[in-house]
C-alpha cells in the first residue's frame, strides 16, 4: 500500500508537468479502484464506466489545482464522488430489485459472461444502495477502497468524527437489512 502511494506521488510530479506517459501509468494503476467505487455508488455498470473516464479527464484538466501535500488519491476520489453524486441525483432512484435481472442480462450480453447460479443474489449491493448518500460514500471508501478514516475525511471534506458517525450509521442499517444473511 505504502509503496503504491509513493509511486503515485512520483507519477503526480510528472503529471503536473503534463507528462502523458506518467498519466497513463497513473490511470492504469487506479482505474480498477475508481471504477469499483463508482459502480458501488451508482450500481450502474455503464454509468460507472463512463464516469471513470470522466474522472480521469477532469483530473488531468485540473492538475494545476492539485496540491501535492494533499493525498492525491483523495483528490481523485473527490472528483469521482462529485461526478457520481451528480449522476445519481440526475437519475431517478432505481429499484435494484427489479433492475437486477436486466443488469445481469446486460453484462452477459456485453461480455458474454455466463453468470450461472454461482453468484449469490446480490442482496449486499442492494442493502448498500439503501444507505443515505454520505453514509454510502463513507462505507464504500472504507470497505472497498481500503481508505482509512483520515483519508475518507480528507476525500469527502468532512471531519473525522463525522466519518465515525456515518460508519456507525451505515453498519447499523446494514446489520438490520442483512440480519437474515448473518446467522
Amino acid at each position: 500500500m505504502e509503496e503504491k502511494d509513493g509511486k503515485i506521488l512520483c507519477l503526480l510530479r510528472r503529471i503536473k508537468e503534463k507528462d502523458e506517459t506518467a498519466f497513463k501509468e497513473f490511470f492504469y494503476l487506479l482505474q480498477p479502484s475508481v471504477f469499483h467505487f463508482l459502480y458501488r455508488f451508482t450500481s450502474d455498470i455503464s454509468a460507472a464506466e463512463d464516469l471513470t473516464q470522466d474522472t480521469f479527464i477532469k483530473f488531468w484538466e485540473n492538475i494545476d489545482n492539485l496540491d501535492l501535500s494533499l493525498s492525491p488519491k483523495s483528490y481523485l476520489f473527490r472528483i469521482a464522488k462529485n461526478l457520481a453524486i451528480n449522476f445519481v441525483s440526475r437519475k431517478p432512484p432505481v429499484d435494484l430489485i427489479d433492475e437486477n435481472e436486466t443488469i445481469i442480462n446486460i453484462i452477459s450480453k456485453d461480455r458474454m459472461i455466463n453468470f450461472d447460479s454461482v453468484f449469490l443474489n446480490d442482496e449486499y449491493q442492494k442493502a448498500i444502495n439503501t444507505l443515505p448518500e454520505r453514509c454510502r460514500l463513507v462505507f464504500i471508501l472504507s470497505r472497498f477502497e481500503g481508505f482509512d478514516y483520515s483519508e475518507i475525511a480528507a476525500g469527502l471534506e468532512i471531519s473525522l468524527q463525522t466519518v465515525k458517525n456515518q460508519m456507525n450509521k451505515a453498519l447499523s442499517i446494514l446489520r438490520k437489512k442483512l440480519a437474515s444473511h448473518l446467522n
Partner: protein
Amino acid sequence: MVIEPQFIIRYIKDELTPEEKELLDRWLEESDANKEEFGSLVLLWDKIGSSKKPANPNPDKQWNYISNRISLKQAAGTENSKNEFDINSLSVKERPAVKSADHKKEINWRWIYKAAAILIISFGIYLFYSRYLANNSSSQIVAVKDQVPKNSELVTKKGEKITLLLSDGTTVYLNSDSKLSYPYTFRGKERIVELTGEAYFSVKHDTSKPFKVISGSTITTVTGTQFNIRNRNNKVSIVVAKGSVRAADIKSEKVVNLTKGEMASFNSAGSYIKNANVNLNNYLAWRSNKLFFSKTPLDEAMNEIERYYDVNVEIESDSARKKTISGIFETESLDNVLSIISLTLDVKIIHTGRKVIVK
C-alpha cells in the same frame, strides 16, 4: 463499557492503536453478548466484501478515449484553461464529438502496429536464423545425418503463461503448468508439436504442410485455424475458435471433425463427446486471466485454482469433492474466490500461506 460498531471495523482493518486494541480486548472479555456482536460485525464486513464485483472495463479502450480527449483539449489551445474551476460543482458534460481525433489516432495506431509488426517479424527472423545457424555451424555433420528435427521444450510453471511464436509463424499461448515440445524448424511434410496441459493455437495457414498437435492419445490436425486444446485430468478437450480441425484418437481410432464453436472431449479410453455450440469466451477465458467453471467438480476446480494462484489445495471432505461449481471469476484475489466458493458450496475453506484446506 459500550463500543461503537465502527470501532470494531477499525480493528478488522488493523487501524487501532495498541491502547485501543487493549480496550477492545477488555470489552470482548466482558460478556458473551459482546463477543457475539463482534462476530456478527466481522461476518457482515466479510460477506459484503465478497459480494459480486463487475468486470473492470477494458483499460486500453478507456485510455484511448481519455488520451484522445486530453490531446484534443491541448490542441484546442489554452483559451478554455482560464475557466475558474470549482471541484465541488463538477458536472458531467455532454461529450464533444471526438470523431476527427479518433480518426487521427487510428492512423497513428496503424503506424504503430505496422512498426511493431516489422519489429516482431525481424526479431523472429533473427531468432530463427541465429538458432538455425548455431545448430548448423556447430555440428554440421550431425545436422546432415540427423534428419529428425531437433526439438525444443517450453514449460510453464504454475501461475505463469507464455506466448510463443513458432518458426512457421504459428502462435501458441501456453497456459500455466503446461508443456509444449516443438522443433526449431519444421522439416518434412508435417508440422508436429506435442502438448501437455493447455494451450491456444493460432496456426499459420499452409495446406501443403498440415499442423498436428499430439496431446495424450489424441492427434489434432489442421491446416490453418485457431483452437484451444486442454489436456487435464486424463481428458483432452478441443474447442475451435476459427476454421476447422480434425481430431483423432490413436487408441480408439475414433475421428471427429470440428468447426467454429464446436468442442470435442476425449476421455482416457479414447471415446469422445461432441458439443455443437459452446460459448467460446468461456473456454478461452484463461487467456484473459479469468477462471471459468461450468458444473465443474470441486476437485477439478481446485486443480485449476492451484495452477492459477500457485497454491497447494487439499480436500479433506469426500462429499465436498463432488460438489459442482459454475461461473466465471475475473482476476480476483484468491481469498475472494475461496470465500465465494465456500459460501456457495457451503464448505469450510482455510487458507494459510500457500496452503488451502477444504474441510
